[in-house]
């Protein structure tokens, strides 16, 4: 079951994929072992709902809360910041490591890590209960993104999410609270793939409340590859 946990990224990377995506959209992107998946808040305060699948076995996928608890036990993360992204039982492998996270490291201040690690994204039922039954949701975005790799929501579990830059928390009573993201324009976060992965994500379309600072925005994404690989090195 075990795999190496601490893969150290080499110093030099080059961008091999660079794309800007519109607000309120979903997408899947392959990320090979050793590559970095980078998300950039190119238009400002915006949440990215992100999960990863093992590219060779879609039954193995990121498990948000398991990662939060395992991170807490190791002193490397929790519900508001993560270092190691574990997969679901029975696998429990490290799929990816966060190798650069200025917001989570406290550059933008705040009382918390600035992310939200949760088994949930915005859905049709959630928006119905909020009084906006016809609004687009992350659920719609994930349905689109999953279809790109031949999956349906019935066949998988897209609700186990690294809510990147979602500045929410659970208060002492157990109520979920919401706040405007700490992230600022052009801040980024880097995920180093430990195995061949598919990143599946939603640029959250929620327009009500502070999650996206009341205005959904587009985002930019990059795949980076170690320089050595491009030059034939190992």
């Amino acid at each position, binding site marked *: *079951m075990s795999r190496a946990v601490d893969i150290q990224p080499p110093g030099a990377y080059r961008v091999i994929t660079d794309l800007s995506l519109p607000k309120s959209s979903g997408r899947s992107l392959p990320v090979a072992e050793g590559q970095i998946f980078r998300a950039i808040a190119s238009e400002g305060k915006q949440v990215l709902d992100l999960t990863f699948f093992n590219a060779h076995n879609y039954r193995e996928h990121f498990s948000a809360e*398991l990662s939060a608890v395992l991170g807490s036990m190791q002193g490397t993360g929790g519900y508001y910041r993560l270092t190691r992204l574990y997969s679901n*039982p029975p696998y429990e492998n490290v799929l990816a490591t966060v190798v650069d996270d200025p917001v989570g490291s406290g550059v933008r201040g705040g009382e918390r890590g600035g992310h939200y690690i949760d088994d949930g994204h915005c859905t049709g*039922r959630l928006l119905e209960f909020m009084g906006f039954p016809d609004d687009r949701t992350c659920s719609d975005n994930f349905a689109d993104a999953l279809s790109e790799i031949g999956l349906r929501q019935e066949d998988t579990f897209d609700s*186990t999410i690294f809510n990147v830059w979602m500045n929410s928390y*659970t208060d002492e009573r157990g109520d979920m609270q919401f706040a405007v993201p700490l992230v600022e324009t052009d801040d980024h976060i880097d995920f180093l793939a430990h195995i061949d992965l598919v990143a599946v994500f939603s640029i959250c379309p929620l327009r009500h409340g502070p999650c996206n600072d009341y205005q959904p925005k587009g985002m930019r994404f990059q795949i980076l590859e170690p320089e050595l690989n491009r030059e034939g090195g190992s």
Partner: protein
Amino acid sequence: MTGRLIERLVVPPSSGRAVRVLRGRTLRVGQEAGGQVASLLVLNAHDHKEQGMARFSGNLSQIQGIGNHYRLGTVFSKVPYERPMLTVTRDTVGHHFLGPHCTARMMELLGAPGHRSCTDNYADALAEHGLTLEDVYTPASINLFANPRVDPTGDGSIEFLPPTAGKDDYVEFVAEMDVLVVVSACPDDVSSLNGGSCTAIVVQIAELRYGPRPA
């Protein structure tokens, strides 16, 4: 218990069992000796792809004003279904944990590699219904009687305190659809999750007893 008792099952310490509960019936999950966590998975009895969400059910319950991440309201199924599966009707404790059950990796980090975990209990119980762990959404569970605290600041680290549930405590649900409920009597006697020792969980199912039809 609400209704006429039709089934009583004792889930032995550190083991897992699955029970079917028909729509409209009452499910009671209770302590035998006290201080024991019961982790639950909930599946549509006729379509196992429709499965309960744990923490997100807390979010939906919070909007409805009937629960949150610690206080259980309604268990909803995952997307794209998002339908009520179980709703709490009585709860003598009122503090639970909607989140991961204990796993092999957790036991390893607790210094007890190879120790039995809820993952093993679920695997055993699911196998009796032709299912594997990969077929279900774990590790997000309805961890009844678990007593954690998530730090609202910093990294959001989690601390598990021993359960406060005594031997007479229970949670009662009404089934909103026909469900298969997988119950793990959590085998973690390493951390404080079960107060350092594991005991049984008592599961009871009842159907409503109607009075005579009015003349």
